[in-house]
């Protein structure tokens, strides 16, 4: 990108000017977002993945003599819930399910989205017509309502919820991939590959897709944030996975009944979700800022 030029003669541009230049400020902003994002994400993801080895009481162990203890009580950093279960342990174990669902859903939607979008953009014709109709229909549909419908009908298992979230998200990836491929397929290397005798499928799979995967995968981080939010909304409405552990939305909806007396049951799990999603969004945003050539172009 921009590098300081060392000229042989003195320049009117001082180091101070360079530090104040828009490009420098943009890069500084992007770097700040990346760091802050990485820290927020790590603060949630590390404890969640290590939940099994951390010295915590069991997530489903009840102790009715120690109900609704406030945070920072002895042995319970986040306090306990209405059944005397350790809130921190519940949040971390539930987070494993939430995160797993989010990551899996994004992987599935990313694969479907890239495949469908690339095929639509590259081949055009009836494939494009079909895919585009799907993309349009999805914009018109009452999304959460349809998701609730599917979950209510097919049961709130991890598989169903993963598929449902993937179903909700693939159009976003597909739309982006399609527009990227439309640009890419006009480039000279595609024509060259054709002249060399490659078939359309090979050109698409071996030359075009590798060139669009990087920009398309940037959107994946933003989708992960959305997937975590969507899963927590579903489980808040009672349509989330129940086993092996209650997920974040469920913990919050359980705590709602005690909001007047035990504020931490709702506040703390919500803060954890927000911290993770802010972190992931900041990471995605920072990465996008950094790869964007210049403000005003691209976007």
């Amino acid at each position: 990108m921009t590098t300081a030029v060392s000229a042989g003669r003195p320049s009117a541009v001082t180091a101070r000017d360079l530090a104040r230049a828009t490009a420098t400020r943009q890069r500084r902003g992007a770097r700040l977002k990346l760091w802050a994002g990485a820290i927020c994400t790590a603060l949630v993801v590390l404890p969640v993945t290590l939940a099994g080895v951390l010295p915590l009481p069991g997530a489903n162990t009840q102790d009715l003599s120690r109900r609704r203890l406030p945070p920072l009580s002895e042995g319970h950093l986040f306090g306990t819930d209405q059944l005397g279960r350790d809130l921190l342990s519940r949040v971390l174990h539930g987070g494993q399910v939430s995160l797993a669902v989010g990551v899996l859903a994004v992987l599935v939607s990313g694969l479907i989205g890239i495949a469908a979008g690339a095929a639509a953009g590259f081949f055009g014709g009836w494939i494009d017509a079909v895919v585009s109709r799907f993309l349009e229909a999805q914009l018109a549909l009452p999304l959460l309502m349809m998701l609730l419908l599917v979950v209510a009908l097919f049961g709130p298992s991890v598989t169903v919820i993963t598929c449902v979230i993937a179903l909700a998200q693939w159009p976003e990836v597909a739309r982006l991939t399609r527009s990227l491929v439309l640009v890419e397929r006009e480039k000279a290397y595609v024509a060259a590959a054709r002249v060399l005798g490659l078939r359309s499928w090979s050109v698409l799979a071996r030359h075009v897709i590798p060139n669009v995967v990087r920009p398309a995968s940037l959107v994946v981080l933003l989708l992960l944030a959305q997937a975590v939010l969507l899963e927590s909304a579903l489980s808040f409405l009672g349509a989330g996975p129940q086993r092996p552990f209650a997920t974040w939305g469920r913990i919050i909806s359980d705590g709602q009944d005690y909001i007047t007396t035990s504020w931490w049951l709702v506040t703390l799990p919500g803060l954890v979700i927000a911290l993770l999603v802010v972190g992931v969004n900041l990471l995605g945003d920072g990465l996008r800022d950094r790869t964007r050539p210049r403000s005003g172009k691209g976007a």
Partner: protein
Amino acid sequence: MPKYLARRIGQSLLTVFLTLTTVFLLVRLAPGDPASAYAAPNATTAELARIREQFGLDDPLLVQYGLFLRDLFTGDLGTSYSFSSPAFDVVLDRMPYTITLAVSAIAVTTVVAVPLGVWMARRADTRRELGANVLTIAGQSMPDFWTGVMLLTVFAVVLPILPASGFTTWSGLILPTATVAVLQLALVSRLVRREMTTALASSYITVARSRGVSESALTWRYALANSAVPLVTALGTRFAALLNGVVVVEVVFGWPGVGSLVVRALETRDYPLIQATVLVTATLAILVQLLVDLAYPLLDPRVRLGKAA
């Protein structure tokens, strides 16, 4: 233009029809029996069979679908199992509440997000703007049910100044609107910032500035006017989505709109009610999208409807 309109309306009707068919099939293919949800807990097999016969759930799927289509064209969406009144009327009773919430949320969003986005674009990449930018990221990262419960705790429980649920006075509108608006605000203001930074960096702005056009005119009359199409598209899409019922927020605040209705309809497997809700909300959402499309030539004289974009 009339040709374009006819084609668009045809497409929209097709989308609504396909949606309804999907929902019709989904609810019937899935496990679960509305008769057992409707009957008394200790109903006998004979009673369940009678209920099934009464609702026509015994007929083959194709027959049910045929009857459903026939009724649809005569404007009859069936009787809700749990409300025992026409499903269409039940949904229409709830619509005003959902529309009120959607309109007030989108109004607040527009009034706040546009100036905020413009400010962020003009001050792009300064320290203060970075702060605002991170705040909007936080706004789009908070789960809306959590924001709702938190606002409820602070303004209805700790400081009891606003009603906690339902819609009996106009002040009951404040908390749900605020909850919905936080997310919309974050999304829309970021869009405005993106569009406006692009617009402000264009050469026509430089030319206009060199001719002595004032900075405020440059911002509001030149750059914003050129960002109008994506902005109106976004607001339209958001509004359409809100009309589909802000399910989560409605549940949190006990808002009597279609969102909370659909949750109840799903619990009781109330097929006609589910179908009626989907028909009404999908039609409304598609109508809003159509209006947005029709508004393009007004916003940007270069747009001609019906020509390939």
